């Protein structure tokens, strides 16, 4: 009797079989976003995550670079290799000088149809969301927005894209089973930045856009850059002091600003606080605001609902101050003080001030 015949029939659920024509789709792609001569960091973060998934699947990691002809655009391919890509598809065309939906959608869609990746990631930026929605609809495939975790179900070679759901109260895992590519967007700072390895190299495969300017209906008249010095740069701040509804009154929020000033920190806030108009929209941390990864995050009067947690969970050290000992924030903070924020905050500000003054003298 041969071994085969003795094997028991496989138990459990029916195994999912991918449509034959979709089996040709192979590889993990990351769209390399850039504006005004620099790669958006979210694309490099996605390369780091994409590398892990490509290794799990045993396939190549590919960057897609589109831009105007020139050294700068080419150098983005090199950066992609340094951050984990094996290969880059490159489309250089003067029509790609500024981001416009039409030519970028055509370029990316054509590449997907030609080279057939199984997974395609984009940053959940204003550019990435505009492009991802258009490309997914054109390709008639699935797209999962703002993922916070990415994984692979190796049994069916399927992307497991997890994201907050129901207004952020829970997480859900979304799969795109019988469609390819499987598309997802991830917001800046959700994934860790991979190490830059300048010894890595890769191949460039060039392609063409095949469009002329007169066929593109939307024209860019001008670009007005932001005045950077005035805008809070929360996603890249190393120290953040954030306040929530527990601060009770807008006047109390000045205690947050005072501690932030002593620490040289950015000020963050929860959605209710922003909606109440206590601080500007750019300071909102969480699912519908910014994702941050500071070295130190001080959460004051913040209960720690999942909407907020997904935006700051990756902080190296989290200090929580809250008068409710059962607040969920104490389940994932590193240090907690249970008590009235209005009395603890000034004391904490003084303690930091005194400690830093002493340490500076000693140093």
């Amino acid at each position, binding site marked *: 009797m041969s071994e085969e015949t003795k094997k028991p029939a496989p138990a459990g659920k029916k195994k999912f079989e991918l449509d034959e024509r979709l089996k040709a789709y192979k590889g993990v792609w990351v769209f390399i976003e850039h504006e005004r001569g620099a790669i958006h960091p979210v694309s490099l973060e996605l390369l780091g995550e994409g590398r892990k998934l490509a290794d799990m699947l045993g396939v190549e990691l590919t960057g897609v670079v589109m831009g105007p002809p020139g050294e700068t655009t080419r150098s983005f391919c090199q950066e992609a290799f340094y951050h984990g890509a094996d290969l880059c598809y490159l489309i250089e065309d003067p029509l790609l000088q500024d981001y416009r939906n039409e030519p970028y959608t055509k370029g990316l869609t054509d590449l997907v149809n030609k080279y057939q990746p199984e997974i395609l990631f984009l940053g959940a930026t204003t550019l990435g969301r*505009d492009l991802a929605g258009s490309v997914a609809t054109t390709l008639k495939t699935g797209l999962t927005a703002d993922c916070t975790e990415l994984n692979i179900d190796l049994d069916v070679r399927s992307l497991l894209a997890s994201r907050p759901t129901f207004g952020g*109260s829970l997480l859900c895992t979304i799969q795109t089973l019988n469609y390819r590519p499987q598309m997802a967007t991830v917001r800046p700072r959700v994934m860790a930045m991979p190490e830059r390895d300048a010894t890595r190299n890769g191949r460039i495969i060039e392609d063409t856009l095949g469009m002329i300017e007169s066929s593109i209906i939307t024209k860019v008249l001008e670009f007005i850059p932001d005045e950077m010095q005035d805008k809070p740069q929360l996603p890249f701040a*190393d120290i953040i002091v954030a306040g929530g509804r527990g601060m009770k009154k807008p006047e109390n929020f000045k205690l947050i600003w005072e501690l932030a000033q002593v620490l040289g920190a950015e000020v963050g806030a929860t959605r209710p606080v922003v909606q109440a108009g206590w601080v500007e929209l750019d300071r909102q941390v969480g699912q519908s605001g910014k994702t941050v990864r500071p070295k*130190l995050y001080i959460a004051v009067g913040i209960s720690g609902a999942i909407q907020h947690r997904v935006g700051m969970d990756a902080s190296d050290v989290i200090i929580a101050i809250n008068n409710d000992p059962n607040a969920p924030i104490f389940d994932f903070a590193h240090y907690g003080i249970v008590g009235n924020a209005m009395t603890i905050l*000034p004391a904490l500000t003084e303690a930091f001030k005194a400690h830093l003054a002493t340490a500076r003298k000693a140093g």
Partner: protein
Amino acid sequence: MHIVVCIKQVPDSAQIRVHPVTNTIMRQGVPTIVNPYDLYALEEALRLKDEYGARVTVLTMGPPMAEAALRKAISYGADDAVLVTDRIFAGSDTLATSYALAAAIQQISKDIPVDLVFTGKQTIDGDTAQVGPGVAKRLEMQLLTYVSKIRSLDTDRQEIVVERRSEGGVQVLKTKIPSLITVLEGNNEMRFATMANMFRAARYPVKIWNKDAAGIEDPTKTGLKGSPTVVSKVFAPTPRATKAEIIQCESNEPKDLSVTLLAKMFTKFPNIEKELLKRSA
């Protein structure tokens, strides 16, 4: 000029609670509202109506109760309202939703051609920002997302100039209509409903379309069947292995608690102290 504004009725997410034991959503008694971002789109459409003269039609896809959201829009000054509702739409993801909405807009266009479609930048329940781009692609309209300002509209030349928020700045774009615009929050404030419009809204015969009336040619492109994405699992976030170390000391005075906290933290994480010294140096 005919503007269609796509709106959505959403649960007031601030009031959603999760059952502590079963981890399921407790929907009972959660009030519904018009997605707040859609109100910016509606107000922008009403302003164009004030300035250039336009017909504003509000459109939603949802359960029968979503009619309330449309009446709200009428009370603010919209002219006409269409509810697309059918059991086969249940479970639609963004791709399937964009198919149904695009079909309905084409149907609306048969009476009076649609020049502009407005949506909010995203909903507060799904938060995906994917339906607007999807509808634009299906209708082959020009897509302008995250629009913070409509600079000008030339109805004779069918041209529109807008300011669009992009990474690091504002793009000023000129395009042809028909186009689809997703409107950014915070650039206008919803007007008050007038008494006359409130009366009108109460009596208004909202058009209620099933899949056939909405011109759905291929029902398999809607609902769960037409949705490439499937939710395979819903779960609560995993708790950290260790909970926060709650700082306590003899006196439990704010001052002593703070000093204890810093001593503990700087011992275990000396790099934090270094970082703070570096920035205050």
